[in-house]
């Protein structure tokens, strides 16, 4: 701590250079924070996916439908407790960028399969009674100001025309990570109004009695429909969510590679800066040593300088990213859960400190090994 004035003085020596280094750390860590938030948003589905639920979709692809009649047949398979289904509507509310997922759901079975979504009973009853009713997640409701009783117009894309719904309920999630961006309405209404794909559903979700046997049940379902015009692919919701994230693009790998490039560049830039700044100070380091500063103390001073820059710059970046994520989803709906958790903030700081140390290590060793007599002769 006694050496802090010396460290400060060294940082102030070239203000522009120090500011650039601090800036590099800040930008890199800001990016780290935002990428971490994006990754969490993408993996959110995997985290909260039920282990006791199977997603049954058309084997050809997710967008191909399955017959309505499969519900009864899946229910008959041993180990299956309940079956619900949904269809992707894909409509637009006012503008294309206002994105939230709309599902035409099987109203009678939905809540049995998704107990984590909570709707006040009287709201649910009102919803059930209204053919054109809908229930909205609290996130989407907050974002667009939907309240119970509101009429919400949605422009159909798959099934064109204007579809109007009345909000009867707002659902909440039991856990913080639960997706509260969905918009539900009655499948019966969709099927009645749409001109094609009548009697088909998007996908089924089966609740199994014993999560340990989920994979066996999934296989039984697929075997049941093998060699039919609509073959199925059943998998646990977790596997499905993971596969979905993969389809969107291998986000994890993308984020890792972006991160790696950014941090490698940061390391090169700060390492080079540190090396330059220590080389310039050869004479001064010799003076410190002649005064009696030990080699190890000198090593420590240079490392401390790297750590100080990393702490300040990294701290600014992490704080900036936190502030940014607190403002909420910047894409307007693509990332319903957009936050930078404390654990990742700590990881970011550790990463910054690691880079600070790594960039200072060679200059520090140079300073440690420097012999006073050589330095003074050179100076």
């Amino acid at each position, binding site marked *: 701590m*006694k*050496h802090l*004035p*010396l460290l400060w*003085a*060294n940082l*102030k*020596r070239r203000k522009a250079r120090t500011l650039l280094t601090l800036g590099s750390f800040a930008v890199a860590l800001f990016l780290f924070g935002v990428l971490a938030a994006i990754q969490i948003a993408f993996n959110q589905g995997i985290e909260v996916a039920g282990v006791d639920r199977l997603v049954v979709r058309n084997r050809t692809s997710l967008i191909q439908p399955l017959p309505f009649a499969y519900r009864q047949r899946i229910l008959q398979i041993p180990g299956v407790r309940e079956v619900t289904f949904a269809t992707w509507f894909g409509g637009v509310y006012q503008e294309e960028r206002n994105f939230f997922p709309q599902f035409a759901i099987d109203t009678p079975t939905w809540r049995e399969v998704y107990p984590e979504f909570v709707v006040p009973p009287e709201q649910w009853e009102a919803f059930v009674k209204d053919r054109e009713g809908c229930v909205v997640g609290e996130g989407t409701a907050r974002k667009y100001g939907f309240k119970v009783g509101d009429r919400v117009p949605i422009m159909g894309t798959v099934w064109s025309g204007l579809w109007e719904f009345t909000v009867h309920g707002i659902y909440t999630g039991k856990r913080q990570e639960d997706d509260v961006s969905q918009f539900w309405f009655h499948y019966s209404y969709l099927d009645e109004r749409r001109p094609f794909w009548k009697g088909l559903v998007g996908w089924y979700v089966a609740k199994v009695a014993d999560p340990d046997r989920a994979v066996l049940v999934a296989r039984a379902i697929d075997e049941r429909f093998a060699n039919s015009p609509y073959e199925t692919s059943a998998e646990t919701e977790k596997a499905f969510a993971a596969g979905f994230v993969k389809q969107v693009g291998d986000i994890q790998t993308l984020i890792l590679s972006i991160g790696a490039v950014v941090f490698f560049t940061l390391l090169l830039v700060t390492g080079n800066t540190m090396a330059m700044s220590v080389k310039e100070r050869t*004479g*001064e380091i*010799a*003076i*410190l*040593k*002649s*005064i*009696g*500063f*030990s*080699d*190890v*103390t000198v090593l420590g001073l240079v490392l401390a300088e790297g750590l100080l820059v990393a702490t300040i710059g990294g701290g600014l970046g992490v704080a900036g990213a936190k502030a940014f994520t607190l403002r909420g989803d910047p894409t307007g709906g693509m990332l319903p859960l957009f936050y930078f958790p404390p654990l990742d903030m700590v990881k970011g700081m550790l990463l910054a400190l690691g880079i600070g140390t790594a960039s200072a290590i060679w200059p520090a060793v140079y300073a440690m090994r420097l*012999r*006073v*007599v050589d330095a*003074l002769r050179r*100076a």
Partner: protein
Amino acid sequence: MVRVDGGGDGALIRVREVDKVYVRGGEAIHVLQNLNLDVERGEFVAFMGPSGSGKTTLLNLLGGLDVPTEGSITVAGDEITAMSGRILAEWRARHVGFIFQMFNLIPVLTAFQNVELPLLLTRLSKRERREHVETALDLVGLADRMDHYPRQLSGGQEQRTAIARAIVADPTFLLCDEPTGDLDRHSAGEVLGLVDRLVHEHGKTVLMVTHDPRAAETAHVVLHLEKGVLVEAGR
């Protein structure tokens, strides 16, 4: 007493049969050869000699910045040629005050902070450090320049700041390598007067390399470095 014949066992500084050989491009340069020196407490010794004769080399050996190829150096009973690394650095902090010809001060630190540097290696409290620094700067007549940076000081003032730093931790002896080499006559006179006062009023032991006969005159003893050994030039 100052002796160059290897006698004088009670001396503060005892250099015995020191050789210093540099090897450069496969060729050995014998800078110091079988050099002896004894300096008692309170002495003021000037070293003279042509350029390249090894004066700086000798001073660096005495200050524990370099090690002799052969021989031993003992200061106040401690054989520094047997020390290394951290121990030697600690010894330097306690016993030696260096004043070089140039590059003495850290440019980004104020005069006060520069003088405080040696005290950062002690257990003194912040207040005690402040008192010591003020005393030292007062002694060199720069109490009013404490908050100035080196670039705001004249060459003579810089050198006096360096002297304040060299004495602030009250070392056993001072090593000065051409302390006036870069200064004009007037500033050189000031610096020499200061060194003289340190010796006579404060009882410091000073070993100084100089090219300047006028500077050498202020010393008790002038030693010439010739062909790797010291020769007494008398008073």
